[in-house]
């Protein structure tokens, strides 16, 4: 199943925050660098597996448990409704 961003949330780089944030009606969540990297891969077409391999390609030297971290973050993001199953 491919993943897409919930249109309620907007992912954006903020200079003043020195990183990416999620914006939504009257609120903002500041994202860690790795969280931002993962969400930037969510494009409405890629599946979780696609996202994991794309990030492995991008960060070949990342620790072994990176894939597990991605799983965990994505399930958190779904719980929060930031990310939806297409």
């Amino acid at each position, binding site marked *: 199943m491919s993943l897409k961003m919930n249109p*309620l949330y907007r992912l*954006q780089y*903020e200079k*003043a925050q020195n990183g990416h944030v999620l*914006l*939504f*009606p*009257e609120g*903002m969540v500041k994202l860690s660098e790795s969280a931002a990297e993962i969400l930037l891969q969510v494009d409405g077409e890629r599946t979780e597996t696609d996202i994991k391999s794309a990030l492995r390609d991008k960060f070949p030297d990342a620790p072994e448990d990176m894939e597990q971290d991605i799983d965990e973050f994505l399930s958190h993001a779904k719980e929060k409704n930031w990310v939806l199953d297409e």
Partner: protein
Amino acid sequence: MSSESAQIGTPFWLLAELTYQCPLHCPYCSNPVNMDAENAEIDTQQWLKVLSDAREMGAVQLGFSGGEPLMRKDLETLVKHASELGFYTNLITSGIGLTEKRIKALKEAGLDHVQLSFQAANAEENDLIGNKRHSFEQKQKVARLIKKYDYPMVLNFCITAQNIAQMPDVMDLSCELQADFVELATVQYYGWAYENREHLLPTKQQLTTAETYVNQFRDGQEGQGPKFIFVTPDYYEVRPKACMNGWGTTFLTVTPDGTCLPCHSAKILPLTFPNVKEQSVQDIWHNDFSFNHFRGDDWMPSPCKDCDEKHIDFGGCRCQAFMLTGDMYKTDPVCSKSPDHHLIQSAIANAGESTDKPLRYRVLKKDKIPVKTV
């Protein structure tokens, strides 16, 4: 002065109060009661500069409010500029005057979200509270348009003693209109609401009943439908709210005439506030006397000064302290440690009692609405 010990943050939130004009006359309106004395509104160019300057400083959330922001013909221009600058733009509206043509134009300009306020969940009460006929019908139409144009929609119900019994209707209506978020906000007592407090403050019993209902409803939702947020009035708390997340730390309000405030109700305080017509937003935020005045904790009176909770609530709200005690330097009377806490207790004790004070609808001089006795 506390400017040195205090860290000056970023005005993350900019509230642009474009106009005090509004077709409605809510008796809980947070606009100043002496609006007739206001100066002329700043023009489009001046607003565009305010937006650019604030964005440059790191502001990211932008609320267009009022009054009714739709009364400004240049709203679309301002939204377009804000959106190009990268703001997340929120329109805070009563919906009166939001035609399909405008909602479409605002979408094209890049508006991100619409917050629609309701006075009640049925026509009779809604129109009575806002003192305008057919506004309820109009609002429902607008809510459907907001969804049609794919905006995230927040509904805001202002809850008072007048409508608190209708919580079930309010929640059903929110589901029917497919809101994304719903704020069930018991009104806070500023501006017109303070004038009308005897009419508006619900009793403890009414609040508990409403809150229990909301919780039950939420439990039955199983993650579906709108997300309901219930805001209780701070009169029933024993600690004040961390007003504006701390004075001059996060919020910047610009009023229709260009006055800058650290909080939208601060104009009542005996301080001189700066204006964008005379100074840049940067200069105001960093250097103005009024913005620095309550930053940090050097200004604090006792008991706040020696309290270990002072970095949680910052001594509460300066406006509330001023309205209730006449002294803006005092501890917010909501706090049970405040020597003035009895003022809150007596207001609560009188809640639900009948009053012979007339209910005052929000009016500008030119509106000529008679003061009604309810």
